[in-house]
């Protein structure tokens, strides 16, 4: 598999901070565009949607790291923490836009969380990501030991909830949320199959 080593060689030369910069640049760009008319005549909705999509894409990228290494020999492990924390950052920005620019009133925030399944599910995904973000540092990894890995399996559930959130909010029968859900379930399925193969 010549692709794996080639990518690994290139990836070794990329510093993690470059991933952070590349990951945060879209957020800065989007806020700038929204403020200056670049996102069209309804910037709040556009911003909310684009941040949500980026959050989901980053969650999926984080989920892809392990299968990529196991199945294709592509090692992007060094970037996984940055991907996860970036995903969390985008969920926070997405939530902030919803709170401050979209619904605007705290009373309605509660009402929506309780009454609207897609918001409930999104909020559950966000809450699950908090302990993961808080423990995404060397000190926590050392302190928690084997419990760290168990805890971080919550990222599977968070991604599923993110995908479900998108499915629930789409109007009519749409392809895009199905593709995201398929990607998430596919990446999780790759993990399930693995032990059986090793046993054989």
């Amino acid at each position, binding site marked *: 598999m010549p692709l794996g080593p080639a990518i690994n060689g290139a990836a070794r030369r990329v510093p993690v901070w470059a991933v952070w910069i590349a990951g945060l640049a879209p957020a800065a760009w989007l806020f700038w565009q*929204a*403020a200056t008319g670049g996102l*069209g*005549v*309804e*910037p*709040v*909705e*556009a*911003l909310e949607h684009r941040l949500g999509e980026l959050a989901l894409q980053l969650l999926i990228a984080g989920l892809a790291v392990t299968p990529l290494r196991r199945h294709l020999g592509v090692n992007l492990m060094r970037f996984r923490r940055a991907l996860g924390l970036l995903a969390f950052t985008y969920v926070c920005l997405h939530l902030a836009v919803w709170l401050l*620019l*979209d*619904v*605007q009133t705290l009373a*309605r925030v509660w*009402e*929506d969380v309780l*009454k*609207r*399944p*897609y918001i409930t599910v999104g909020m559950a995904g966000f809450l699950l990501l908090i302990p993961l973000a808080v423990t995404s540092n060397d000190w926590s990894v050392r302190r928690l030991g084997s419990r760290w890995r168990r805890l971080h399996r919550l990222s599977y559930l968070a991604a599923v909830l993110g995908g479900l959130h998108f499915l*629930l*909010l789409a*109007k*009519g*029968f*749409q*392809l*895009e949320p199905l593709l995201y859900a398929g990607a998430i379930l596919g990446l999780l399925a790759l993990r399930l199959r693995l032990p059986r193969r090793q046993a054989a």
Partner: protein
Amino acid sequence: MAYRWKTDLTERDVTPEGAWLTRRGLMAGIAGAGIATLAGRGRAAEALEPNTWEEITTYNNFYEFGTDKTDPARHAGAMTIAPWSVRIDGLVDRPADYALEDILSRMTIEERIYRFRCVEAWSRVVPWNGFELADLLEMAGVQSGARYVAFETYLNRDEMPGVRFPVLDWPYVEGLRLDEAMHPLTIMATGIYGRDLPKQNGAPLRLVVPWKYGFKSIKSVVRITLTAEQPPTSWNKANPREYGFYSNVNPEVDHPRWSQATERRIGAGLFARREPTQMFNGYAEEVAGLYEGMDLTKFY
């Protein structure tokens, strides 16, 4: 039957050409028509500052061209709108395929500045040009057994990238009760700001029912059928719990997935406050009588 409904804002015959395309230009036109009339204006008119051409034509729902708000403006150019005809059939005296030119030669085009409220909780104000649907229906001769009017949108798989996926059950269909269809507020629009209707806004001919959520105002109409029974409607078929046949704008009846109490005005910018939604989108005085005695939480 034309000119059955009026606000002071429509008295701007003197709008200078070329000033149409910006809101400021439009307001200048209104000022030209006489500031004095502003004083006596009712609630329906006071907030009606039309959105700009760009705000009206770059953010649209027309799922046949894609589900993104910018898809219709990008893809609708491929739609063939000439020649165009409308089949009017069902319980009418003169069922036929009516050529658009023939229809237009018999209708009186007037301007109607209406609030437009989408079920997705955004809104804008549009200066439509069009004629009353009642005039068109009378041209075909409504028979006494007719109770409802069914509408159908143009469908062409080669011209509409969005219909490759069954987002909805194509073609798009809508319907009104006959008294709603005959109401003076209900128009068939042919233009905006005095220009031809852009394709993304439903060229060459679309329905506009200002007191209902926007999806009732079906675009690019090719067929109008008078029926005795309530006709099926696209969003109701897709999700009956979320979209009823009536779909009147009602701040007290929420969509299951979001509140309808407030709305976001297109073009107001990133930091604008949401505005309260009005019953029947501000047209309660004109249309509330149509629904007297009906439980609007049941007939949503």
